[in-house]
């Protein structure tokens, strides 16, 4: 049911935008072109940041670094009662959006969606975003060089989300 609803959501929203423009006598085609041009200019500005980030992420995913870091973080994970199988999601989530989804796919396939590991991975994957991508793209688009404490604050939120996923699944599900 939800799947069908969300399939209708985007076309419905686009129709709402267009109809509201027609209703208010907006020169919609002209305005669309102007806005699209603006969007293209912005896109050009963020290409370098995306190349830099994706290069590092591809190398990270190909290298097996995820296994190495997971192994290194084992004692810390044990201390907060986080199953070892969930640790890779905690590391990958802020780095790679596509990687996190692929990892969730594999985790659900291996452990099943209603296992603790499956539930924790699902909540962790859904409750935060790809932090580094967000920072690179948003700041890249405005030419911000000095990020101040952005990374610290955003990673604090990510760490909180990872730890809370474990606690909340234990409490609620």
């Amino acid at each position: 049911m939800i799947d069908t609803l969300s399939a209708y959501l985007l076309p419905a929203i686009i129709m709402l935008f267009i109809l509201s423009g027609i209703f208010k006598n907006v020169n919609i085609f002209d305005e669309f072109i102007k806005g699209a041009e603006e969007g293209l200019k912005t896109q050009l500005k963020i290409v370098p940041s995306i190349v830099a980030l994706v290069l590092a992420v591809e190398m990270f995913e190909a290298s097996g670094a995820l296994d190495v870091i997971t192994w290194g973080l084992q004692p810390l994970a044990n201390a907060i009662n986080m199953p070892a199988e969930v640790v890779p999601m905690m590391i990958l989530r802020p780095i790679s959006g596509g990687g996190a989804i692929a990892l969730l796919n594999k985790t659900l396939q291996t452990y099943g969606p209603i296992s603790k590991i499956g539930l924790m991975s699902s909540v962790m994957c859904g409750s935060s975003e790809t932090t580094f991508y967000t920072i690179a793209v948003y700041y890249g688009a405005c030419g911000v060089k000095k990020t101040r404490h952005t990374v610290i604050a955003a990673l604090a939120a990510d760490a909180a989300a990872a730890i809370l996923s474990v606690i909340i699944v234990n409490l609620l599900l």
Partner: protein
Amino acid sequence: MNKYVTKGANILINYIWAALIVISVISALFTGRISEITSAVYKGGDSAIQLCISMTAIMAVWGGLMRIAEKSGLTNIISKILSPLVGLVFHKLDRKSEAAKAISMNVAANMLGLGNAATPLGIDAMKRLNALNSKSNEADNNMITFVVLNTASIQLVPTTIAALRSKYGAENPMDIAVAIIITSIISLIVGLVINKLIIIITSRKRETH
């Protein structure tokens, strides 16, 4: 002292980028995946450009749609609905500013789970926040708050996750929705509190020096 603290935080993104690459190369040595990582360098460039191409279309489409929504007043309506929420997080930002309206559009897209739309709308909001910023190459407090808000991913219906769960036989794939919202909101609060604490600490140091 504070100068060094601030400088260290500014270049943290350099360290993280470097760490990703250095850790990858060292891990590849240990796991024997040198040839994999070599091909990843080329594949990385390829997939970055592919991502950019699909993003280019999305940026153009939403750039155009947003412009129509602005002209028709739809943006104003949405921002009025979300204004209390946005005001709660950005209490120093004028609720009627263009930046606040753009933030509302991004929050709306995130809530509805329209990830593709959320990025261009978020970039738009960030540019408008930067227009209010006195030092355009340095993130101000509102901009940092906005990054935290976006990385916390406040989403009403986690469609992607639910779709995956149902693919592997979850009878009620949306069972995680409440847990995800609670986790998102608390982690957002943690991020905002840390943000605020750092602002208080660094401004105190600035006063004493």
